[in-house]
């Protein structure tokens, strides 16, 4: 197994894949801007300390046998298996051969098209964004408006709410609206405890500068003066058009070994794939756990394994001191009930499809066993 593998992406999935390939003795080059780091950098400690959650450093990458090309892929010539890479440090773009290619670039988190937000708003979904935001909130007592109450926005609001006067806005009526009711209830309770007002069903018209402050203009909640605006609404595909015909597609369909369907020697890892789960059908899992394990699985597949990827969805989140964990596939649950302190979702046949639990990290194993028994 001497032919080099090119891994595009240096987040959790790309780093996990490249590391495992190197462990297995395969030559591997990982392409991504900067040293590998978690993204979105959701760790509360990252935002509190201003230190990126790094996955490795240059010395450790060398020790592992992972070559790191610090740059960004700007062109994909799939028929000829060539990539054009803009180097972070400048210089001429590099053209490299990629006979065996792993795509692991995750999702993008662009700012929504609200007038003024693009140049006046910060974001907490990329490493550079998190570092720039941290510079603005180093002194306590800032007035911060967070736009978007999904996972990134709610975690950010709860973290900043411990030292700043934070307001959380969203166009929907509840924070974490796409999650189960106990999660949204728990998040609302935490936000209330922190003194973070949540303005739901908010229509944001624009962000303006007014002297030395900013103003978020809304047609539902008036003008909200603040010092810092954080955009945390929505996500988009990071896939180039050479890999997907539909620009709205978030992920590439893969087979059970995580090889991209219809392509030889092309695999995907992390957020940018869907796979045929033996129980849930074709799904994607945009979370850390899947990024890590799918990256390792791709490495094993490249090394000749034909084992199917069967990892059950698992996500965890910390909204201040509220720890949320969920295993299983919530959309498959047709009924929910509390069983011995766990929120258990069952499918139409009565089998456990999903288990949600909060502030009970010791029960992860038990939750997985319940799911496995089904």
């Amino acid at each position, binding site marked *: 197994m001497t032919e080099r593998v090119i891994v595009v992406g240096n987040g959790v999935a790309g780093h996990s894949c490249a590391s495992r390939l190197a462990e297995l003795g395969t030559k591997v080059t990982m392409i991504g801007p900067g040293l590998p780091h978690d993204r979105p950098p959701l760790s509360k400690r990252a935002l509190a300390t201003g230190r990126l*959650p*790094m996955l490795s450093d240059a010395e450790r990458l060398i020790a592992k046998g992972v070559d790191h090309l610090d740059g960004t892929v700007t062109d994909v010539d799939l028929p000829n298996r060539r990539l054009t890479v803009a180097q972070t440090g400048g210089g001429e773009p590099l053209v490299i051969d990629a006979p065996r290619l792993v795509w692991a670039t995750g999702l993008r988190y662009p700012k929504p098209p609200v007038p003024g937000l693009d140049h006046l708003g910060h974001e907490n979904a990329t490493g550079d964004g998190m570092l720039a935001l941290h510079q603005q909130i180093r002194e306590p007592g800032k007035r911060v408006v967070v736009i978007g109450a999904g996972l990134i926005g709610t975690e950010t609001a709860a973290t900043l709410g411990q030292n700043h006067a934070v307001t959380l806005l969203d166009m929907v009526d509840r924070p974490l609206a796409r999650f189960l009711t106990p999660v949204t209830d728990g998040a609302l309770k935490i936000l209330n405890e922190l003194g973070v007002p949540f303005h739901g069903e908010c229509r944001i018209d624009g962000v303006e500068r007014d002297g030395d402050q900013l103003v978020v203009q809304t047609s539902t909640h008036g003008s909200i003066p603040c010092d810092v605006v954080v955009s945390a609404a929505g996500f988009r595909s990071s896939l180039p058009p050479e890999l997907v015909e539909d620009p709205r597609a978030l992920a590439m369909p893969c087979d059970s070994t995580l090889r991209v369907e219809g392509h030889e020697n092309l695999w995907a890892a992390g957020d940018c794939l869907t796979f045929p789960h033996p129980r849930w059908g074709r799904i994607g899992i945009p979370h850390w756990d899947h990024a890590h394990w799918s990256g390792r699985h791709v490495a094993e597949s490249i090394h000749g394994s034909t084992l199917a990827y069967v990892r059950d969805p698992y996500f965890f989140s910390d909204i201040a*001191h509220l720890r949320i*964990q969920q295993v299983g596939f919530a959309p498959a649950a047709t009924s929910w009930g509390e069983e011995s302190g766990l929120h258990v979702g069952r499918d139409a046949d009565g089998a456990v499809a999903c288990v949600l639990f909060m502030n009970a*990290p010791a029960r992860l*194993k038990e939750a997985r066993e319940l799911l496995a028994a089904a």
Partner: protein
Amino acid sequence: MSVRLIVDADGCIGSGECVAEDPQAIEIDDSGCARVLIGAMDEARAQHLCDVCPVGALTIEH
């Protein structure tokens, strides 16, 4: 042999895998980071916790 388990707070991502395995030995604190609850433990027990951590944020100190 008794050893100490050390958490790399910058490396821990709070996946909770360690707590799921041995909640008497380790917990998740309010910042979402693993925290060791006992000063010394059997080396095999500590090694198991190191093995289940997906990011290698746990190490053994002899």
